[in-house]
């Protein structure tokens, strides 16, 4: 049976087609990487845009408030026209307080979940639990905000009767719950990346599963696990709506979890929804706080990357 009318071999057809369509093919081969490169550059432009945005208005802020006051003043009272005070420390302490409380929830529960999923659970259990936990991470934060305010706070008040209605504890716990999946799934990834050969080596020496998990797998995955903690902290610091809704808005320099606090993010929302007139110092302070938040999370992300880079080289 004849292939085509011409008595041409496939190799010849290919040869013919190649020489014909070459210039277009060559052009595509050359153009594609350039186009893709441009897309990659967008991500850099985004960062440039953020820095530009923040710096532009922040400079106006610091022309009126000294940097020294900004970082040393113990009070944050931007709204008192008579005598405003712009000390970032209370907002920082509020932010850190929430983040620390969140980590006290997220680390134990997240890590235990990771260990359970990677070392004990069967494949099918793991496959069904992970997506459910993902839902937990994907719930809009505004929903969590009201959950904190209308469920967790009253619940806490039955345990701690003196607990004020607005406090750092409740949003801290809820932020913690929100980032459990992040800790769990990143730690689980790091632990699953530990080669099975190591588990087998330990089991063959008569170890129990617990010993394998705690003495072999966890140490081997440690940097990945720690990186997940650090990333989770960064997420907790940047969380906005939960603390805006349930944290109160009193910027106080405190480390008492039952105090009402204000975080950097909550201030930004408050001030931008509020009364500040354009060009006023409060308006500029939004950006000063924004850049502080940005630098803060940037440093933390860098730390996380440094840790997980070291981790990648270890096997």
């Amino acid at each position, binding site marked *: 049976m004849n292939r085509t009318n011409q008595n041409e071999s496939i190799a010849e057809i290919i040869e013919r087609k190649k020489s014909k369509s070459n210039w277009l093919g060559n052009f595509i081969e050359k153009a594609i990487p350039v186009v893709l490169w441009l897309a990659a550059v967008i991500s850099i432009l985004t960062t440039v845009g953020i820095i530009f945005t923040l710096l532009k208005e922040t400079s106006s802020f610091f022309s009126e408030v000294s940097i020294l006051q900004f970082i040393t003043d113990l009070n944050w009272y931007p709204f008192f026209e008579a005598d405003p005070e712009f000390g970032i420390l209370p907002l920082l302490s509020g932010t850190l307080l929430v983040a620390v409380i969140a980590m006290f929830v997220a680390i134990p529960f997240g890590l235990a979940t990771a260990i359970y999923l990677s070392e004990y659970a069967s494949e099918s259990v793991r496959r069904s639990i992970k997506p459910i936990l993902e839902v937990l991470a*994907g719930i809009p934060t505004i929903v969590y905000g009201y959950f904190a305010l209308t469920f967790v706070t009253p619940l806490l008040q039955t345990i701690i009767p003196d607990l004020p209605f607005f406090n750092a504890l409740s949003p801290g716990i809820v932020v913690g719950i929100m980032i459990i999946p992040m800790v769990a799934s990143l730690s689980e990834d790091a632990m699953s990346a530990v080669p099975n050969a190591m588990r087998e080596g330990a089991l063959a020496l008569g170890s129990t599963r617990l010993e394998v998990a705690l003495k072999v797998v966890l140490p081997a995955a440690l940097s990945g696990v720690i990186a997940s903690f650090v990333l989770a902290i960064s997420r907790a610091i940047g969380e906005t709506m939960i603390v805006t809704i349930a944290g109160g808005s009193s910027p106080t320099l405190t480390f008492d979890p039952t105090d009402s606090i204000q975080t950097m993010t909550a201030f930004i*929302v408050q001030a931008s929804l509020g009364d500040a007139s354009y060009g006023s110092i409060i308006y500029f302070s939004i950006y000063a706080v924004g850049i502080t938040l940005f630098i803060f999370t940037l440093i933390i992300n860098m730390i996380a990357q440094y840790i997980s880079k070291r981790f990648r080289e270890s096997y």
Partner: protein
Amino acid sequence: MSLINKTDVEQRMHGRQRKNNVSKYLFLAATMFGLVVLAVLFYRVISQGAPHISWNFFTEFASRNPEDAGMKAPLYGTFWLMLITAPVSVILGVSTALYLEMYAKKNRFTSFIQTNISNLAGVPSIVFGLLGLTIFVRLMEMNQSIMAGGLTLALLILPVIIVASQESIRAVPSDVQEASYGLGATKWQTIRRVVLPAAIPGILTGSILALSRAIGETAPLIMIGAFTFIAFVPENVWSGFTAMPIQIYNWTARPQEEFQQIAAGGIIILLAMLLIMNSIAVLIRNKFSKRY
């Protein structure tokens, strides 16, 4: 001479096994904690909001009368936002991932881009809100349009999509790529016909999860000043908009108790959309996970 006392070892065996069993249940309990919270949260929202969900709730605009208030404008708004956010973020994200995984040489510039992307992934969403406000709303004079909101959200989830796409591109075994090169395929042919088809389930899963996050984002939209009351549906991408989280946030601040319940109704719809998107992602993942 034996250095190990065998009877000691035997005796300890039981203690070790017991510890193992107890811990197993502790770990399980910790895992269940997250699920229980999820259940409580759903129960509360549903019991409060379900009675308010009716057909009108989807077809009416917001109103000062709780009985008449509906989600039409925010539903349309969210839909239109995704119309911008999804293609922009996915196209940019996949392109960037392809560049980094398939073309970029291992040099300073590449690792700079990579570091930059990881950092962007950690930037708080509210800072993206400030970016959107300054660049899109003001500088580019897009006002509070769907375009401005959609682009802001697109940049917000871009790093997540890039990372997810990179991972699934990396997961395409290099031996099938080699097979393609071995047949004389060019790089782009290999990418288009072998790498992308194999990576698409992973890319889709990551993108859907990222988009479901974008749907629930409140802070950046508050920052760019999305409308709170709107009684028309958008005509094009330059129209003003409101979105579901904004509407919910607004309702909860009302003095009337009924609005709190309507807000819960809105939350149910938001959660339902989220669950649907997550299930689609899971389905895709499960369907394609056994490929290699």
